[in-house]
């Protein structure tokens, strides 16, 4: 259908250069497919190398840092732009000139949906044209975005629930790679990784992918808050697809492959257009072109959402914040299970920053980091906590903070974490404190030697010590047992004792969040366990 038209079409300089290369079909849509493939493979590459064995210096969270919605929303919650998030400008500024090109040229999650729609979507031409008309449903993504931004203004960052890059990273880390490793053992992990609640994350991924058969690019058109953000931004764009009404024969062929459902056959909805160029390729009479500042009457510049809905969405967001905080899960009613990774901000600031991308979960070398379900409250869904049944926090490791794009987990050094060298006085970062359950502990309750906990305790001196006692066993024979204790001033809450405890179902030593250094409200020992911290006023020295 398109072959004959290619050479008769008026071509720009760029296209002339491309066409001069013989034997290559360098239509703009093919160039776009190459771009999509490149960024998709780059994304997969970065996901796979986010592993202690391969990480070296790769920018593991590059896509998240380029995501302008992450930069914008964290700026709303914290009033600042954290480190690499400044890179969001690299995507935001071109959008101001070209429109939402990110969605169909770069976004790896968009490429996933484009690909599945192309593979499994409808083949019948007329059905495809009807499927690609603009739907009012598409205003939902703006409602979602506005509600999330309203929540962000109160300090609750929720964009990560649906931000495509956070969502895709989260799905890869918690479901896709562990799932592939289940089917093909020893591919992505030395030992199989498990993730609490992976079924929910995986189920949502499958749902979004399968929905492409019902509505092509369902997620991108209807739900994506980043798409909504870029759609609102592209209101200012200087270039857009323009239809020449004098040439147009109203055949609607331009809708056959339209990705954004932006109505190129009539007034273009600028906020919905993914700049995929399919319509230009599909037009049989060359009525469509990508133009600099075309006629304003031929476009609908603003997103398709009435002002009353904007107000409603804002109110829903504000109410959502109030409802989410009502349980007190991030405050007085905090769960003992919410043990955050080392370097995490205190809980309210953590919730201002965490986008639930779960990069920390991906990079963690022990599988201890797990996405929450309701442990950290509604706002904390899919944020990382430590689960000592599955792993423990490695003493000489701060990888989670180094891949965190938003500073929810700060980039602390090993020295700062362990409290050595220049940081001896402030002491180590504590995640919680370990407590014995003497009714379950073998030397305490069962006349049996053990103290694996003491063996693996990584601090020096060990936080776990034991006292020898000789008791008479039930059968009358004497036995000398080492019975373990925790010295709370030494305990950093890493949880390796709980992880290695032979009582696998419910360990006889368990770490809870109390004593964590990130929050003074959750501290345990007033003197930090060090009596020399008490100023001796009589002798005027410490």
């Amino acid at each position, binding site marked *: 259908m398109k072959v004959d038209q290619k050479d008769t079409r008026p071509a720009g300089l760029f296209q002339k250069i491309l066409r001069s290369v013989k034997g290559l079909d360098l239509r703009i849509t093919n160039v776009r497919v190459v771009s999509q493939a490149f960024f998709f493979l780059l994304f997969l590459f970065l996901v796979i190398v986010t*592993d*202690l*064995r391969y990480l070296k210096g790769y920018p593991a969270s590059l896509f998240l840092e380029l995501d302008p919605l992450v930069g914008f929303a964290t700026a709303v919650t914290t009033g600042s732009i954290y480190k690499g998030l400044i890179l969001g400008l690299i995507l935001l500024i071109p959008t101001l000139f070209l429109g939402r090109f990110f969605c169909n040229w770069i976004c790896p999650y968009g490429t996933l949906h484009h690909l599945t729609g192309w593979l499994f979507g409808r083949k019948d031409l007329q059905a495809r044209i009807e499927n690609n008309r603009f739907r009012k449903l598409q205003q939902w993504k703006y409602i979602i975005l506005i509600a999330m931004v309203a929540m962000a203004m109160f300090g609750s960052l929720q964009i990560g629930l649906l931000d495509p890059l956070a969502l895709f990273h989260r799905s890869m880390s918690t479901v896709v790679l562990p799932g592939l490793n289940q089917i093909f*053992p*020893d591919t992505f992990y*030395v*030992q*199989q990784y498990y993730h609490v609640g992976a079924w929910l994350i995986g189920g949502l991924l499958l749902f979004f992918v399968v929905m492409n058969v019902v509505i092509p690019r369902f997620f991108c058109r209807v739900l994506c808050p980043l798409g909504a953000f870029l759609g609102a931004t592209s209101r200012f764009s200087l270039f857009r697809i323009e239809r020449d009404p004098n040439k147009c024969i109203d055949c609607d062929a331009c809708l056959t492959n339209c990705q954004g459902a932006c109505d190129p056959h009539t007034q273009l909805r600028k906020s919905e257009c993914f700049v995929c160029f399919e319509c230009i390729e599909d037009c049989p009479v060359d009525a469509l072109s990508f133009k600099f500042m075309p006629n304003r009457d031929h476009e609908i510049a603003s997103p398709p959402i009435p002002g009353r809905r904007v107000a409603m969405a804002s109110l829903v967001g504000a109410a959502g914040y109030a409802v989410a905080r009502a349980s007190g899960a991030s405050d007085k009613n905090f769960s003992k299970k919410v043990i955050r990774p080392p370097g995490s901000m205190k809980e309210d600031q953590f919730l201002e920053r965490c986008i639930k991308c779960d990069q920390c979960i991906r990079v963690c*070398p*022990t599988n201890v980091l797990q996405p929450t379900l309701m442990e950290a409250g509604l706002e904390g869904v899919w944020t990382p906590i430590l689960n000592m049944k599955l*792993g423990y926090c*490695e*003493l*000489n*490791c701060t990888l989670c903070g180094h891949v965190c794009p938003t500073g929810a987990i700060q980039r602390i050094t090993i020295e700062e974490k362990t409290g050595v060298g220049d940081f001896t006085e402030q002491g180590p970062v504590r995640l919680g404190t370990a407590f014995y359950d003497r009714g379950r502990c*073998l030397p305490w309750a069962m006349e*049996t*030697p*053990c*103290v*694996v906990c*003491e*063996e*693996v*305790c*990584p*601090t*020096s*001196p*060990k936080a776990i010590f*034991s006292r020898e006692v000789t008791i008479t066993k039930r059968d009358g024979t004497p036995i000398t047992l*080492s019975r373990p204790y925790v010295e709370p001033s030494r305990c950093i809450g890493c949880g*390796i004792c709980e992880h*290695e*405890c*032979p009582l*696998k179902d419910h360990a006889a030593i368990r770490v809870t969040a109390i004593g964590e250094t990130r929050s003074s409200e959750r501290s345990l020992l007033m003197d930090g366990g060090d009596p020399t911290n008490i100023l001796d006023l009589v002798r005027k020295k410490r």
Partner: protein
Amino acid sequence: MSKQEFEPDPKGVSRREFIQQALLTGGVTLGSIGLAAALWDRRHIVPGFEAKEGIQLPGFRVDASLTLPDLAIAHGTERGQTIRAALGTLGGMGRFIQHGDVVLIKPNVAFDRPPALCATTHPEALRAVAQMAFEAGAKEVVVADNPINSPAGCFLKSGLEAVADDLNLKLLYPEQSAFTTIEMEGEILRHWPFFNRPFQRADKVIGLSPCKDHNLCSASMTMKNWYGLLGGRRNQFHQHIHSIISDFALMIQPTLVILDGMDVLMSNGPTGGRLSDVKSVNTVIAGTDMVAVDSCGYGQLLGRDVANLEYLHKAHARGLGNMDWKTSKWKEVGA
């Protein structure tokens, strides 16, 4: 709506169609019965009490020498030279390794720690032993361990991965598929998941361990090093730690063990964590009998009384080694 008029087909099926359909239905019927009968399981089992079986390791010892010592103590200031001096005293690596051998070196990489803290086998010790193996004609050197901390972190931060990359050693991670059940008549060990992949190719096995204090069994030396070949619920081992460690002497007969006492972890073992836990003793002990080597190391390196180390007594009593190392052929040298 009125009911649709139904008109029966006057002809029905043809004979050919009848035979085809009958054969198809009959075939699927018989097939279902046959398949079900073939898969029918009528065994009686009590889960957890099924008969267990496992592999046994071949011996890796070389023939005993009538003249050369079986235990060498070398003193020196440089790690590589001191290890070479100890091996030289035993008759050189050539006594143990033939041309074309695949050599497995089992370091102790249990923890995610830098070398200076002495909780793991020192990378320079691995370098020296691997180089000597290649000089003696080894075709390939395999390095394997199943650490307590995460394997990737342990190999990376202990510095062993860098040496393995440098010398082109084959580093094996304890992947799920690398384990199989081992079987023995131990005091307590009978059947246990065993890191067998490295043994599928190894002709010779060298244990290369640091010398460390241990919170429960007092010392972690060459015998305790084999702990890192086991998988499964190792955290139960502490309940019978001395029996388990003596069982290791039954489980494996290595070609050679080397106890690196250049720096010794004297306290807070087996993890250590501070430089003040480490003491320079500048000694390497090597030998063919791990019970003798550990007995020697416990006294000479850790400075403790062998009379108190129960697992040595157990192994000695069962004839798995000689804890009275001074009665064997031994020699002490300076590097």
